[in-house]
């Protein structure tokens, strides 16, 4: 696991209050991790701050799973 994936997972665990092993590559924030739509907005905000990147709204909409998030952040960071 890369450092980026670990940092991203930590944010998800803290924010959504889920077990670390539930945050799998294909885990959907909304369907699998119990996030509501506002949680996903807050996750994106947290990712932006942690990694010093900007995630535009249209890109944010494509981030549905933990894997999506890690991939986006890796490409952007």
């Amino acid at each position: 696991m890369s450092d980026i994936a670990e940092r991203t997972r930590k944010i998800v665990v803290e924010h959504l209050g889920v077990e670390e092993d539930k945050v799998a590559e294909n885990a959907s924030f909304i369907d699998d991790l119990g996030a509501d739509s506002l949680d996903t907005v807050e996750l994106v905000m947290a990712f932006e701050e942690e990694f010093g990147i900007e995630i535009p709204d249209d890109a944010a909409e494509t981030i549905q799973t933990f894997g999506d998030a890690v991939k986006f952040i890796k490409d952007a960071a």
Partner: protein
Amino acid sequence: MFDLSGKSVLVTGASGGIGAAIARGLHGAGASVGLSGTRVEPLEALAAELGGRAHVLPCNLSDSAAVAELPKQAVEAMGAVDVLVNNAGITRDNLFMRMSEDEWDSVMQVNLKSAMILSKGVMRGMMKARWGRIVNISSIVGATGNPGQANYAASKAGLVGMSKSLAYEVASRGITVNCVAPGFITTAMTEKLNEDQKTAILGQVPAGRMGEADEIAASVIFLASPEAGYITGTTLHINGGMAML
């Protein structure tokens, strides 16, 4: 009575009668206030009157790009925006059949769209803080309508709908969004009315007098206070009984 010490407040239209009273009231309750408006001189005068904890943040609300910058400037000046008061408003009255799209658009831009942009701009900080207050100054005519003011009434009713929707979305984050809807309030604008006009207006007000800007300010202080944390999505009508809604 209500303590806002340590809170930072952004008030638009602070150069006007009601806006200045709101800013004074919130400042008096201990808050730091960001005074926004188009006319710098009255803002500077108000800041000088208040002394410390007052910041002049001029902004032309007709300019969306400038509006988007205002929350950032407020955070730079005060460190945060815990309370946003969207008070600024303009009128471009005309009979509906004569109303131009320009008259419609300019009122919508300043009264409604700027409130949307500013609310969006302060939302991130409020969500992180798990605390925030937005108070939108609507108007009695948003609920009752008024001949010659289709644009103004639509913008003020629009604030109510926007506030309720946003209130739903962010209630779980400790953020409340409410409206205050003044009736006839003594301001520079109503001072210009002649005696006949005033008598006609007062005939419609059970209280038999116009409201004072301080009476609007008091309600804003209350809605901004920690004590009002369970009040959200509501509109507080302050009109001397003119319309009991």
